[in-house]
């Protein structure tokens, strides 16, 4: 069969330059190794480990999937990695101790939690300019921008609040008090509902975005595990609107929740101290980062079964996936 020679060479070049470009890939930040682990999602194996800044925690993709933003907390910067070359091409002025962040749908404005400074810093990812710094509660952590781009919501762990920031004016408009130590916020695809986990409170609040009031509060019970150890952190909503997955920290379980009725359907045993999660691009699998066991668990979303664990670096924290 005839193959145009240039296409062949292009293919080879692409294989050499970006081995990860073909298969779907996951990137996992290893907080205590100052590295990222690259996982090939076909073979479910680590193919590469990349050195990055100090104490990498939150990671996020640019909307076009060409860049990866990395909170290098102890380097006090957000690093920008070119995904084609795996080289750090820029350091954004993130403010001190960046922990988590969220990219605005405009693909430019990055909303960053500065954990040590009780600030949210807004950075333009193109001009590298700080657009605003907004004072929030003690230990800002979770960050999410609504799908319509109107709201940036930050959680402050010691203040136990959700802070609602207007992305037009960068003013703080409202605060919603939730249970102790809110860690993570996640908007539904439609943007009408916000899920917020409270690690020490042991609950997940479901918040109506229009009124910014809590409409439901989820609690969790796992047989044989002390309630104090059930500590919700990461929340992920399946694209079909069917499930919410809640990572329950040192209880080493992920709760499967019916996203419509808020009923807890099941608890899946994963690695130790599970914090953050991400779906594979085809939504077939959910990856979890397990800090203490230093691995990633793979959950089959259809069967609701844990099918594999993948050893990564020390204290895996954040995870993203791309095609």
């Amino acid at each position, binding site marked *: 069969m005839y193959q145009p020679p240039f296409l062949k060479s292009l293919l080879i070049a692409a294989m050499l330059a970006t081995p990860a470009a073909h298969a779907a890939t996951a990137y996992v930040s290893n907080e205590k190794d100052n590295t990222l682990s690259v996982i090939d999602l076909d073979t479910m194996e680590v193919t590469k480990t990349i050195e990055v800044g100090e104490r990498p925690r939150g990671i996020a993709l640019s909307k076009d999937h060409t860049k990866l933003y990395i909170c290098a907390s102890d380097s006090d910067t957000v690093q920008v990695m070119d995904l084609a070359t795996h080289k750090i091409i820029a350091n954004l002025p993130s403010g001190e101790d960046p922990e988590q962040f969220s990219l605005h749908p405009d693909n430019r404005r990055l909303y960053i939690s500065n*954990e040590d400074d009780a600030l949210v810093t807004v950075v333009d990812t193109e001009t590298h300019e700080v657009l605003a710094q*907004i004072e929030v*509660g*003690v230990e800002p952590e979770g960050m999410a921008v609504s799908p319509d781009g109107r709201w940036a919501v930050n959680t402050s*762990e010691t203040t136990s609040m959700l*802070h609602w920031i207007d992305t037009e004016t960068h003013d703080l408009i409202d*605060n919603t*008090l939730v249970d*102790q130590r809110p860690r993570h916020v996640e908007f539904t695809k439609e943007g009408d509902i916000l899920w917020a986990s409270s690690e020490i409170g042991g609950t997940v609040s479901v918040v109506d975005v229009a009124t910014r009031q809590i409409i439901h509060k989820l609690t969790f019970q796992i047989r044989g595990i002390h309630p104090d150890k059930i500590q919700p952190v990461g929340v992920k909503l399946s694209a079909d609107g069917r499930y919410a997955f809640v990572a329950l920290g040192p209880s080493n379980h992920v709760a499967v929740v019916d996203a419509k009725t808020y009923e807890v359907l099941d608890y899946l045993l994963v690695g130790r101290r599970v914090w953050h999660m991400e779906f594979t691009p085809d939504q077939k699998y959910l990856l979890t980062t397990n800090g203490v066991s230093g691995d990633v668990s793979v959950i089959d979303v259809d069967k609701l079964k844990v099918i594999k664990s993948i050893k990564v670096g020390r204290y895996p924290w954040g995870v993203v996936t791309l095609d």
Partner: protein
Amino acid sequence: MNKLPRLLSAATLSIPLLASAATTPLEIEIGYIGFEPDHGPVLSNILPEPADAGLKGAELAINDSNTTGRFLKQHYTLHARSTDQPDQIVPMTQALYDQGIRLMVLNLTREQLVAVEAELPDDVLLINAGSQDNALRTEQCIPGMLHSMPSRAMLTDALAQWLMTKRWKRWLLLEGQTPEDRAYADSVARSAQRMGAVIVERKQWSFDTDLRRTAQKELPPFTQTDEYDVVVVADERGDFGEYVPFNTWYPRPVVGTQGMSPVVWHRVVEAWGAAQLQSRFEKLADRWMNGRDYASWAGVRTLAEAVTQTGETDPAALKQFILSDKFQLGAFKGRKLTYRDWSGQLRQPIPLTHPRALVSQSPQAGYLHPVTDLDTLGFDQRESQCSVKGDS
């Protein structure tokens, strides 16, 4: 660029409970009394206890509470007084009361706490952030007083649980000469009995031995007793205890007030978000946060959390809320903390540390309790005559 000044006017409330407070800021005034004694000469004075231990923790808690308070129109002020003169304590507390201050965190000894409580009228809420005295939690309860500082029994039970999980059951107990050392050693003896360990011998380090010789020469014969698995040291001010590790007759670990210690707090605790608390503290105080700082921090945060949740500043209402099952304190120890509604003691996990690392944290797995495993540390309800809930 910086929008800070506009922030205050923009912050609105979404909690109906607190809506009434939105018009005028709620002023919360908290008193802090610290006794900063001279600990006397010690053999090892390389790392002295900072004089402002406790005070800096209270200051940090006020800062933390004001950051939260901004969004709720609450403003916290600390009125801190410290002295090294025991006879100044009661007048200083009285003066704070006369200023109208009804919420106080006290970094004091047992005798001072008793005197302060006896002097003040009943419409106050007092939190002990200084004394680890076991009697205050059992038979010499001070009416209405809460304790953010753990008791010695909580510390020694935490240690004993860990030793038992290691199956190190034979202990040599060494104590210094102060009443505090004796109290610690008594608490170790109680924990040994409770957990099923054996104290092969209890010896006092009197240091009336040949002073021309060094610890290296003195300690091996001093620790030459029936064989033990571990040496437990009770030397709270750090006089001789620092010299026990590596100088024992048998090659055995050293635990207790030196070696590996059960502590209220230590720089090496960094899980559960503690790294952030540590770095906030270091920025404020320019030193590491210790157990006294932590207890005062937790005391002030207890009051502030209760104000945030209830919108009240009345001492009786706050006390009732703090002792209810609605109260929970996020305090960087991996789980929410609550108060025992009989002794007023803040339940808390106890880290076990050596100077450069965290070894473990008690309660240990397998130590169970019908209410909470945290109640396997210290005195349970039936061991205590206190009834803090019923006190005025």
